[in-house]
């Protein structure tokens, strides 16, 4: 299995993991049957993602895409965060093996789901 340096860096050194106890939105995606579960926590302030964290059960790609996704949304306006695509996440990691692209899909879904949760709660 050949991962890029960026993937390995995010996998090994990511500090973006953990829980946000008073999160404004939580997205829980994936399925442990398939080996990947991602929880995304966000904190929103003034329409921007003030803080975000992830908890992930899964492979290298799942953890690295979670971490990268957090990097990509932090500080962004919510609607910009919402438009981040799985391809953008994968590209930011200098690519993923084809059979691991589904992990980036999960990351995109995780973010969307956390933001939707936030929007739901703040309707």
């Amino acid at each position, binding site marked *: *299995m050949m*991962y890029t340096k960026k993937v*390995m860096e995010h*996998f*090994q050194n*990511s500090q973006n*993991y*953990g*829980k946000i106890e008073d999160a404004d939105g939580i997205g*829980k995606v994936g399925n*442990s*049957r*398939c*080996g*990947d*579960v*991602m*929880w995304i926590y966000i904190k929103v302030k003034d329409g921007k993602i003030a803080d975000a964290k*992830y*908890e*992930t*059960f*899964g*492979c*290298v*790609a*799942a*953890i690295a895409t979670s971490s990268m996704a957090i990097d990509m949304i932090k500080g962004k306006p919510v609607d910009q965060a919402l438009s981040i695509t799985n391809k953008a996440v994968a590209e930011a990691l200098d690519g993923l093996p084809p*059979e691991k692209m589904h992990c980036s899909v999960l990351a995109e879904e995780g973010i969307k789901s956390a933001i939707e949760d936030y929007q739901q709660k703040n309707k």
Partner: protein
Amino acid sequence: METKYYFDYNATTPTDPRVVEEMNKFFIENFHNPSSFYRKAGEANFAVQKARERLAELINAGSSEIIFTSGGTESDNLAVQGTAYKLKEKGNHIITSRIEHPAVLKTCKHLEKNGFQVTYLPVDRYGFVDPEDLKKNITDATILVSIMHANNETGTLQPIKELVKIAHHKGIYFHTDAVQSTGKIPVDVRDLDVDLLSFSSHKIYGPKGMGVLYKKKTIKITPLLFGGGHEKGLRAGTENVHGIVGMGKAAEIARLEMAEEKKKLRPLRDRLQKEILEKIPEVIINGDTGKRLFNTLNLSVKYIEGEAMLAMLDQQGFALSSGSACSSGSLDPSHVLLAIGLKHEEAHGSLRISLGKYNSREDVEKLIEVLPAVVERLRNVSPFWQNK
């Protein structure tokens, strides 16, 4: 970091330097086709015969009962397809188990598409086939039972002798995939009384691309590969002389040294097991801890996933394997671990540690040192661990 600590001997082994040396002259100096007429060809042929005898001796067979193949996969295919096609007028039912290697399982799936019926026996949570279960599933159409000797993932050893008796009582052929046991523990085809037995060179410190199918003299099978009449017409193709010679040498070394290896490796494996269980909470041992290959330790680390562990360990120079789907590019985790009743998450979180003759006490201590930190880090990231 370089791969420095190799714990994946069940996947493949380095070629023993004595094997490499024995093969060397068959590339350039004595490259000749053993079927040719001239004297150098005779020498190659002689070397092939000598290897055949060494391989026979390893499993207590006659040398005329050794069929050279390209590996364990071909041996399994030849045994299962070869029997099925030979006996198709007699019956169309095959019995195997759910924990076989894909070389048997997928061959059976293929046969199912071609008019055969296959029963896949379940196993208990230690990985054992129940002999009563075999008895119950035999029908008048059953022509072959194929059940592996040692499982490649858990190391669990089946009660082959007992299973063979049940099959033979009904006059049914018995094949065993002994790829993981041959060369590690004594395998005696006369004692087991199997009709067909597969093993593979690269699992016993021999070169890759070689295997053996033992076929009892009295058994008839249909070949898979037709051509120049090699291997008494059962497996055509110019002989892979260096491969055969190397595998022969590997067999000899295994026969002479396996007891010693066991004496060295079993305590190392046991220490690994004990220390890991002590140092890491919520770890499950997969497979039976008694009737198990002495070199194999399969465990599930709850709440985290196997490929992630492999990657962390790889960064620190460790080579291991996992039954997680993520490490194999497939969709489902190990069929073996699911068959012994693990939940999907547990199977995803499995690690297989398989030791071999170049492992030192130091390797083991190093793994004991590193693994807990790897697990901790990944558990810190895991929603299941954090929120349990």
